[in-house]
């Protein structure tokens, strides 16, 4: 090699100025307008979920047989369902379910995946091999069966639903995190830390984890939208959230299809809510990925 003849090969690089978080946010908005729009919708959704009792015009559970299948109008902006429940109110309350399940499943799924991925990469050898086999098995397992089985075994509660939904996320996240962690693992400072006799836990927490934060955040945000979608599908099948709780997928179930012709609003608006929410999360997640790690592919 010619390193001795090379003369100070250092790319001219602008020194990073210290920036406040506001600058970071503003810069993100300016450079990634689509992502900013997505983030704005997400924030709006969170506000709606938090203030649901204040802004919902009706009790989402209140049955009103006098107003069954009422079309959108002054009384019920988005109409009512087969029990006379206000669709708008149910959508507003449904955002709570969507956010809880979405954030819950995405957080649990990507965190568990990250722990497995980092551990697998750090310990290597046999541990890595076994973890990889397990990930292969779980990835190839049909999701709906996992969800069905989990719900059947654990019971049909919200936490169980969240755990069932993490099943497809954990192996995917572990795979991505593992490959990032593998390159960190090769860094000299990890060897140095080992040589210095630091504990495994300390090395993983202090050295490896900070270096896989970018892929972790990317996976987390991409799971958010997927989790909301998955919850909707499961609820639509009757495997997710149970009546009478307000949940978007549930609103599309049964009567919505039955009365599709006479009361299309029942099918239209909850679906729009799902799509908008997932759309927003994806827009934001995409831009975040571009900003953090343009090379990472998440499909």
């Amino acid at each position, binding site marked *: *090699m*010619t390193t*001795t*003849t*090379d*003369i*100070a*090969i*250092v*790319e*001219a*690089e*602008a*020194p990073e100025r210290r920036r406040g978080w506001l600058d970071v946010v503003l810069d993100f908005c300016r450079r990634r307008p689509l992502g900013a729009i997505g983030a704005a919708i997400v924030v709006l959704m969170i506000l709606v979920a938090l203030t649901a009792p204040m802004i919902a015009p009706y009790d989402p559970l209140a049955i009103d047989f006098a107003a069954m299948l009422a079309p959108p109008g002054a009384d019920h902006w988005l109409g009512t369902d087969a029990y006379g429940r206000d669709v708008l109110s149910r959508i507003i309350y449904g955002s709570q379910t969507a956010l809880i399940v979405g954030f819950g499943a995405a957080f649990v799924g990507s965190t568990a995946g990250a722990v497995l991925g980092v551990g697998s990469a750090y310990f290597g050898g046999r541990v890595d091999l076994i973890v990889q086999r397990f990930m292969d098995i779980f990835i190839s397992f049909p999701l709906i069966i996992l969800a069905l089985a989990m719900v059947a075994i654990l019971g049909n509660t919200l936490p169980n639903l969240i755990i069932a939904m993490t099943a497809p996320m954990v192996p995917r996240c572990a795979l991505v995190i593992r490959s990032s962690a593998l390159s960190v693992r090769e860094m000299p400072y990890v060897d140095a830390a080992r040589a210095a006799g630091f504990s495994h836990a300390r090395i993983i927490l202090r050295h490896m984890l900070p270096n896989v934060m970018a892929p972790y955040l990317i996976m987390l945000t991409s799971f958010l939208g997927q989790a909301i979608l998955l919850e909707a599908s499961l609820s639509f099948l009757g495997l997710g959230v149970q009546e009478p709780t307000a949940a978007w997928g549930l609103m599309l179930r049964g009567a919505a299809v039955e009365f599709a012709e006479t009361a299309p609003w029942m099918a239209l608006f909850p679906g729009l809510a799902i799509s908008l929410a997932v759309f927003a999360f994806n827009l934001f997640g995409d831009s975040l990925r571009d900003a953090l790690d343009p090379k990472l592919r998440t499909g």
Partner: protein
Amino acid sequence: MNDRVSSGALLDVRDLRTEFTTGGGVVRAVDGVSWDVRAGETVALVGESGCGKSVSALSIMGLVARPAGRVAGGQILFKGRDLLELPEDDMRRIRGREIAMVFQEPMTSLNPVLTVGRQITEACEIHLGHTEAQARARAIEVLRLVGIPDAERRLRQYPHQFSGGMRQRLMIAIALSCSPDLILADEPTTALDVTIQAQILDLMKELSRSFGAATLIITHNLGVVARYADRVNVMYAGRIVERGTAREIYANPRHPYTLGLLRSVPRLDEPKRERLDPIQGQPPDLTRLPRGCAFAPRCAFAIERCRAEAPPLQSVGGSHLSACWVAQDLPQRSALSPQPSGDGEEIPSSRAQRGISR
């Protein structure tokens, strides 16, 4: 040195400006640079990474990465035509046919999923209208020329089956396949082992001579320059700071930056020196260039004026130009480091005619 009779410039770059828009602002990678290449001659563009030499070559080829980069001004006259004014399709016809380029990274510059035969023949098929058989014959011919034995078999292989040096030969074969008038060689040997470097450079020199092609050789290595170039342009921070024949540059550098470059090059033909003297400091941030001479912050000879006013490129004797206020006051090179009595012809001859396998 082959000082040919000047028959007008083949390539005449005038006041070229190429800019990149980055997060940190506009980078003037090439900032008003003029130089020329005459037919059949070898000209060197020398400087550190990021000084704008590669960008100059890409500007000529019309391959500056858009949308971040753009040629902001100047003229690139090739055979009298301004390449910057040409429509894209005319420019495409010149690329590969009249001007060919050899890139720095032979490992990544070849397509991994195509056979090398395919990659050599396609230019001939497009530019010269060769049939498949003709192009194949030509490919075998150029492979032999660049010293790759067993050409018929090798054509069917993939790049990963070749070593780094062999791949650079392939790149040269591709460049030569249409007999271009000008070859732009961007750090053609940087990624290679030292022993291979000499082989590749000798090969390029010989081939460009026998093809009558002019060569622009871009390098950070003044050792390469001395051996292979007729004339030299030294670039720093997007500008040319010194120009002259290889002999002038080597024997009598008139810019502190060139001096620094020369002192940091190890030489195989000299008794071992105690240590190399790297240039102090870092190349400047191109988004925030100083008002005066860009090299002044790193320069041991800088005076007050250097920091206030950028020096123009002016003659320090005949065609030897330097952009330095203190050009005439610089020490002679021999005064800086013990040298074997300099007659200028300091070509490391011990490895001069080694290597090329025929």
